[in-house]
């Protein structure tokens, strides 16, 4: 909740200010196979949520904001990424 003093100066608020991560929106989740990854950075570039971090040899993945859109999976040229249903290990939903 905002402090009284913030309210007084109107709807002008310091940013960023994130009350929630959006990871909970996810029904499916990308999983990275570091074996296959060749660090081409395509996923890093195309992830709308900025979930990937560049590494020395492979990218890594932080799912706090991942909404499970599947773009990274669709774009990865090496099939190093796959979608699995959130919470379980089978990938039923990702088959649709």
């Amino acid at each position, binding site marked *: 909740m905002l402090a009284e003093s913030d309210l007084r100066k109107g709807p002008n608020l310091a940013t960023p200010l994130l009350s929630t991560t*959006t990871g*909970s*929106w*996810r*029904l499916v989740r990308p999983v990275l196979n570091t074996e296959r990854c060749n660090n081409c950075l395509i996923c890093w570039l195309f992830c709308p949520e900025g979930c990937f971090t560049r590494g020395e040899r492979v990218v890594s993945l932080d799912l706090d904001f991942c*909404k*499970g859109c599947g773009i990274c999976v669709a774009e990865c040229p090496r099939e190093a990424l796959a979608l699995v249903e*959130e*919470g*379980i290990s089978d990938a039923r*939903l990702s088959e*649709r």
Partner: protein
Amino acid sequence: MLQIRWHGRGGQGAVTAARIFGLAAAVYGGWYAQSFPSFGTERRGAPVTAFTRLDDRPIRDRSQIYSPDYVVVLDATLLESTDIFTGLKPGGIVLINTGREPVMARSPETRVYILDATRLALEVLDTPIVNTAMVAALAGTTGILSLEAVEKAIAAVLSRDLATRNIALARRAYDLAKVLGSKEAIACDG
């Protein structure tokens, strides 16, 4: 007055579920009804709620629903981030679409039912859209609406082609749920 809260995610059809239920009740079920979305700016994937009110006299109350009699959850993954029990009336019913472990009710008076509507939907519709199934399931569990009313409402809201398949789904869900409703506590697996 009966108050229902529907939980889903943006794009899953919770709002339509609330409407179909209201329509079934109001036009085909002999009730007065009112339904409305959660008035949010939610995007696809974000948790959303929708509401239906039923009564046997005209409904004039326009305030939000804080103490539902029934809660319907279209997507069990919501259980992690949302407190679906909030405000639930003592003795209330919770109906959850899940194929997994049953959920623990918050209070002993609450009846929690689960149903794997996703599986049903994949079987019947070939896509995991469960809203009509859950409408029918609520009707069946509680007995407040006939299957016929639900079917007519689905036919009125969805396009012809979609309606036929959703009616088939609704029938299956209704029948399963009727059995559920007659049980005491948690039952499962459609």
